[in-house]
């Protein structure tokens, strides 16, 4: 038949088509060869050791009109922002901005604190600033209502609620968790490979500087939520933490992910029905800066007056202390109150 001649491709045509198909297929096939290895936030600069004379924790008291100023004073008291942020750094800040609650309901970091912190980081020469909180509420509304959207307006910072697994990279938490406590007792890490697979946002993996900016809150499950519990706002697999026990998992996450700087917002403290509220709110009017999350949380327990929490009642502080992450006993630390 005459038509058959049209169907027979020349060798050249065949090779063109086959080569193109193979190239496309091969390119897309790369997706199936994803690396088995773990990513790690290896670029994050460790917290600098306190120099003689600078306090471990700086506490500055102010009033509602000076929340921004006391934030700057607190950071300056422990050595200034340039000790933590270098020029050209990719900085990730993780504030509490994931709830649809107004600032006076105390479930979120105060916008004035966020704004001043972002401005300080920007003036220190950061090349990129990302504010990350994986919001449980609708993130667009949450960022708007808690004031974070207005707080970063005009700065180079961007807000991000990483709500899709493609924004995350797999990490190995258990690689940094010891099998023995500092006292020599056996410790069974909850993060075992086949038990909990954990992922961190790509932005944190690639970051040079990681700043935690929590607010002091009561938490009905984890007792308190300050700097250590705040890290649960930037992980993907939170369900397993609730299933396998919240406190050891929080402590192990803090062993792995070590912030460069902690700026705690204790201007208001949510005393009941945390972490979302609404509940009773008190106003200690303080901002704290430090580098040790265990000591920070331990010190901030005194602001939760209604329930009267002491550090010994918080299991994740006790576990983190026993693993050597920080000091739960703040009596030996150099704490400067201003």
């Amino acid at each position, binding site marked *: 038949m005459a038509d058959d001649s049209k169907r027979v491709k020349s060798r050249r045509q065949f090779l063109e088509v086959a080569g193109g198909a193979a190239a496309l297929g091969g390119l897309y096939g*790369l997706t199936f060869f994803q*690396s088995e290895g773990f990513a790690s936030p290896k670029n994050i600069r460790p917290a600098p050791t306190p120099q003689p004379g600078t306090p471990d924790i700086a506490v500055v008291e102010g009033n509602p009109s000076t929340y921004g100023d006391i934030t700057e004073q607190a950071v300056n008291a422990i050595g200034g922002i340039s000790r933590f942020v270098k020029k050209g750094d990719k900085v990730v800040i993780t504030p509490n901005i994931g709830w*649809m609650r107004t600032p006076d*309901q105390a479930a979120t970091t105060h916008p004035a604190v966020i704004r001043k912190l972002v401005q300080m980081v920007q003036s220190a020469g950061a090349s990129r600033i990302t504010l990350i909180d994986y919001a449980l509420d609708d993130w667009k509304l949450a960022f708007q209502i808690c004031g974070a959207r207005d707080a970063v307006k005009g700065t180079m910072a961007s807000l991000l609620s990483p709500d899709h697994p493609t924004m995350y990279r797999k990490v190995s938490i258990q690689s940094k968790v010891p099998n023995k406590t500092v006292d020599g007792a056996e410790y069974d890490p909850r993060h075992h490979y086949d038990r909990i697979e954990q992922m961190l946002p790509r932005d944190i993996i690639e970051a040079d500087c990681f700043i935690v900016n929590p607010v002091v809150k009561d938490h*009905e499950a984890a007792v308190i939520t300050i700097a250590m519990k705040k890290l649960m706002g930037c992980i993907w697999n939170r369900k397993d933490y609730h*299933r396998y026990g*919240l406190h050891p998992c929080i402590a192990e996450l803090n062993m792995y992910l070590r912030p460069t700087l902690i700026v705690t917002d204790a201007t208001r403290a949510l005393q*009941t029905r945390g972490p979302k509220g609404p509940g009773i709110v008190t106003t200690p009017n303080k901002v704290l800066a430090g580098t040790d999350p265990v000591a920070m949380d331990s010190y901030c327990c005194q602001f939760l007056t209604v329930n009267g929490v002491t550090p010994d009642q918080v299991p994740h502080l006790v576990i983190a202390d026993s693993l050597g992450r920080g000091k739960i006993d703040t009596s030996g630390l150099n704490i400067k109150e201003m």
Partner: protein
Amino acid sequence: MADIPQEFPTSRSCGGCGTGCGCGSRIKAGEQRVRLADIAAVRKNSRKDSGLSPVVMNASGTTIATSEVGDGPYARFTSEQKRKMREQPGNRAAHNIVKIRRTVQVATFILFCVLFFMTTATRENSYGINKNLFMLMDFLNTLKNGIASHHFAIYAIGPGLFILLLTLWGGRIFCGWICPLGTAIDISDRLLYRKGRLFYTKKRSDTRRFRNWKYIYLLLGLGALTYGVDILTFGDPISLITRTFTFCIFPPISYVWNGFLNVADSHYIHGGSLLYNLGYNIDNLRLPTDHYYNGLGVLLIFVGLIGLSGYQERFWCRNLCPYGGLLALISRVSWLRHYIKMDGCIHCKKCEFQSRMGCYDNLDKNAKQEAMHSISECIQCFRCETVCPTDVIQIQARVPAGIKEALHLAPSGSAPRPEPQTEIDLGKRRVVTALGAGVLWGTVTQSAPSAYQGSIRRYNKNNTAMRPPGALPESEFLAACTRCAECMKVCPTNALQPATFEFGLQGIWTPILVPSIGPCAEKCTSCGDVCPTGAIRPFTWQDKRYKLKMGLASVDHSICVAWNGGRDCIVCAEVCPYSAVVFRDTFDDTLPKDPTLPIDHVDATGKEDNRGRKKRVPTVDERLCTGCGLCEYHCPVMPTHAIVVYTYQEDRNFKQPSEKWDDGFWRGNWDARKDVGKNAEYAATKEELAKHIALDGPSGGSGSAAGAAYNPDPTGAQ
């Protein structure tokens, strides 16, 4: 094809208008293909014994000399005449109209695709255009919805009315020029079957065989509608193509696209992010990755109707489409008609073979009956006028001769009459039988019987499958839903899924809310805004918050990690936007006070001191719960969640926002308009609910001061 005589005018690839008329514009070198050969091969045998030497007229009315040798339709002409006829094969204006028609088809198809991709919950890009414009053009939807559910979607009237008037004037222009399913079939025809050829119908006889099926289907469906059973929706063209796009076209596109983004980002190679380090953020380019149950059935239907086009061009539109059937009945009185001068016809039968819908009958020279054209089948593709070599077919919009004569605008008998019509072969007996069979079908398949749960047909049949907010009462919802899947496409959390048999045979592909896939987002009203039939009525977020209960969450004490085991988990209370999950303290004597010691540990005095401790457990306040499913979605107990939403206490009665008849074209200012009056309507409810919100944790505190400051609507909008 070897027996084709070489002197036969092999037409060349035209490429101008796509009708393959052979007019020779833009011929590519080396692209000569035998096209008219197909006609010749078929015609050869039938004309062999005719022995006639016809005297025919060309367009200008001059007589064309006939040749002696009869071999093929053109063999009677001299080569010079043949050359002229090839170069001027008919109506130049018709060529242009075909080009316009193809442009309109492609443009409307692109518009359909753009509107489809814009059908997302983010409202920033809608510009007030109604994103389901094409669904609303399908007035069969509006009609059957009104018949079956007694609920007319007011805003669907506008585009439907436009198409009705267009059909009354010009017949099935919608089918040939606008319908995205028709365009999809045409494109696939061109790519898969037609390739370079004019047509692929090898036999003429098959074109009339199945024509009536669409009328039968339409009547069956109308009959079944009396019992609220909607079988027309499976063939409704716009529903079908929208459903196919949602289930079968969009998910693969988004997967492939996102996969290429991941490759570009080197995501899979070193675990890091190449583009992030280079300063680019590609997350905004990602498409939502939606999953749907039951895509296979939809895909098979679509593939099947594309495959049927291999048998007849536009098999679906000719024989099966119920909306096409409805438009065909209406188009009997249309004005845009084919005026055929039969005395100039050379019986080449090009029109008969190439008519996209097989409209022409009895064009054979030896036909016993009068040559006919069927306007009810014609989709005004203008191909016949274009290919006619002697220009005897003219498609013109004239006032019908009968009206002209009745109004004495023209003397009797002088006004040009359109072509003789092939009657629709649909007698009284068939109509009655089809309607009766439809009613029978309705009675035996309806799944919302009136006796269900006592008295009224309002209750959901299934206690776990929730309907989206704003859904009509169940029996009316089943009748009104057209299964276009736009609500599932628009759902930002992928929570709406097509039902399988949760609601019986009648409820297949209707939307259900599956909280374990995604929750009903707090202030989202997209599914109500987008529903073309009003099966999901437009609602406001206040309606969802204060009135429309989709169900009630219920805690399973045997698997909840807080109830059973006393672990610290408050996720359901954390995520609840309505503060409906309340934690309270309870004492559990099966838990050890000190976990390191056995529960029956005895102290020095022989007394058990380790038995029982306090635990903190979730309960649900039924006044505040709306059944949105956020708690179920976030519950860490998997795969069966410890807090599950059931359809208890669902409420489907509310005062829906008023619509205007022209909202179908342009829903200007809709978001603000639909909220009018809702604040006042729900002021008392809001106040009442705020009283029930527990402000204190289980561990106490008075907390009344904070309670006064609580505002259940922190956005301050409205």
